[in-house]
């Protein structure tokens, strides 16, 4: 090939490449890459594009989905949960239910109102119920990255073994929402069941702490929940690497994170009540509470 032909071909190549590059920049806008998880043989690392700006959806088209982690025996709680949610949860607004389970066939078919949808997300079953409980953070995080961030604006993560008794509405929406545990709202902080061993990443010393938050209810804007679950999962993995498991599993890690990154909105114990406790006068309405169950039978 003569020099002339080389130059000409480079010329044409350049002419083609330049518009491609310009198009790439203009089309994609600012690109942010999500970081890897901690290196661990069980979890593969994920690298995704996550667009900063999302179109804001106006009322009443806000989606409020609920990821629910389910083990085999917990599937019997789905029916009552969904039926009560249809009656009381965000009535009149668009809701996506995401039920995470290792046994998709057993999920009962519940009649949903129009503008509501149900997705069943299969997950792995772990040998210990504590492991399943703690893996919730990772599972929710991954689901947001893959699916939810495109489908919803707000995300609530709720325990399945509970039932709605009274309306739960848009007063609960906020950037980052936590609920105060019904068992510890009027005790001094030294009695909170925080993780007290300093070798754990969820450690909170005696003299510190605002409230004891319940692990059964948390939520907020999808982006905030993504960052929160990622941070919790990191600390859970750190504990795993050190061979320690926090007192109340992911609830301890949740409390640790809400202590250093304070939630923007708190829900009173009305929103996460324990049915075995008698109702005190200051709790005027119980909106969401546990279903009586035999723990031994369910968990193992």
């Amino acid at each position, binding site marked *: 090939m003569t*020099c002339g032909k080389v*130059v000409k071909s480079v010329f044409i190549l*350049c*002419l083609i490449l330049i518009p491609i590059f310009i198009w790439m920049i203009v089309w994609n806008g600012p690109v942010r*890459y*999500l*970081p890897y998880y901690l290196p661990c043989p069980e979890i593969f690392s994920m690298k995704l594009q996550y667009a900063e700006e999302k179109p804001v959806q106006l009322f009443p088209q806000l989606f409020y989905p609920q990821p629910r982690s389910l083990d085999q025996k917990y599937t019997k709680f789905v029916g009552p949960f969904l039926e009560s949610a249809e009656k009381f949860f965000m009535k009149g607004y668009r809701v996506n239910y995401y039920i995470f389970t290792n046994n998709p066939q057993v999920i009962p078919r519940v009649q949903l109102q129009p503008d509501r949808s149900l997705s069943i997300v299969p997950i792995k079953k772990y040998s210990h119920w504590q492991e399943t409980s703690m893996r919730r953070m990772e599972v929710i995080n991954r689901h947001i990255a893959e699916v939810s961030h495109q489908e919803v604006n707000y995300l609530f993560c709720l325990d399945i073994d509970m039932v709605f008794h009274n309306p739960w509405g848009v007063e609960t929406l906020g950037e980052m929402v936590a609920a105060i545990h019904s068992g510890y709202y009027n005790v001094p902080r030294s009695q909170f069941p925080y993780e007290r061993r300093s070798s754990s990443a969820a450690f909170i010393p005696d003299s510190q702490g*605002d409230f004891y938050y319940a692990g059964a209810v948390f939520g907020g804007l999808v982006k905030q929940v993504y960052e929160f679950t990622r941070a919790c999962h990191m600390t859970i993995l750190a504990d795993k690497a050190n061979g320690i498991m926090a007192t109340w599993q992911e609830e301890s890690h949740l409390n640790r994170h809400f202590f250093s990154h304070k939630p923007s909105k708190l829900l*009173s114990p009305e929103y996460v009540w324990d049915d075995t406790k008698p109702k005190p006068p200051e709790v005027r309405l119980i909106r969401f509470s546990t279903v009586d169950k035999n723990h031994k039978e369910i968990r193992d």
Partner: protein
Amino acid sequence: MQIRKVHMLLVILMAGIIVYFGIPHIIQTSCQLAGQADLDETFSVLPRMSYPQPFVDKPQRTDVLLMSPWLAPIVWEGTFNRDILNAQYRQKNLIVGVATFAVKKYVRFTEGFLSSANKFFLSGHRVNFYIFTDHPEKIPLMKLAPEKRLFIIPIQNYSRWQDISMNRMDIISSHIHSHWRYEVDYLYSMDIDVQLFEHIGVEIIDTLVGTISSWQYTKPRENNSYERRPESQATIPSGEGDFYYAASFYGGSVSEVYKLTTACFKGVTEDRANGIEAKWHEESHLNKYLLYHKPTRLLSPEYYWDEELIRPHIVKVKRLSSVRKDLKEVRF
């Protein structure tokens, strides 16, 4: 084809363009660690602090309303811990702007305002004071704290003091559009004839903030000084109204204040076209706006106390108060 210098130059030029556009993307794709650090920064941790535990069943104030019906907190002394708020605020690296107007005889209040604001307003945080005046030479030169800056902006004055007051909205709105949206994150509008006596800190920072008027916080809504004539754009029908907000101190994020001032000034101009002036001028328009665009945070009357009133028990602290003056003399 003969190779000429022109061809070589052209090839080099194109290669340069490709490098200029392509390299940043290539770098981004290979730099996951940078991304990790980026996310870590946005999720930075609060420092360890020691403070008394908040108890759910023991509210610090039982004599006042702490939250509006739309869950906007009402800021009273004793309800917040400024250390925690400061720790959260410092992570965000924000700049606050304060817009104030010293027109005609009101220039004399500048020194008192600036010296007290320098000491008590968001002390330790970055604040830009923007003083609009028709006599820039009369603004005294003052030494401000290192993180505070002063900008003096000349404007024209109007013959009627009501017009000066109402045009503030327009001036703020246009300045946000031209400059402030690039310079500050939060913007507050304050009257110049005030002085600060107590610290006003980051508890005022929120998306849309209104101050409850010290004159009218106990009145039922029918007796409030809302504009009631239906011909005015600022009219609020009877049976409606939450609080009566003072126009002497309001603010919020730059975009929200822009929307507020644009809407209020639009109401003012439409009223002028119809030959009507609202009862309390731009304050009436502000009240109308904040009724239908609820503020996300409310400041108690501690944050703007009128000098002429006797302070009741519930207002434990007088943070910002108007300066004693002879209204007739200073306005005309």
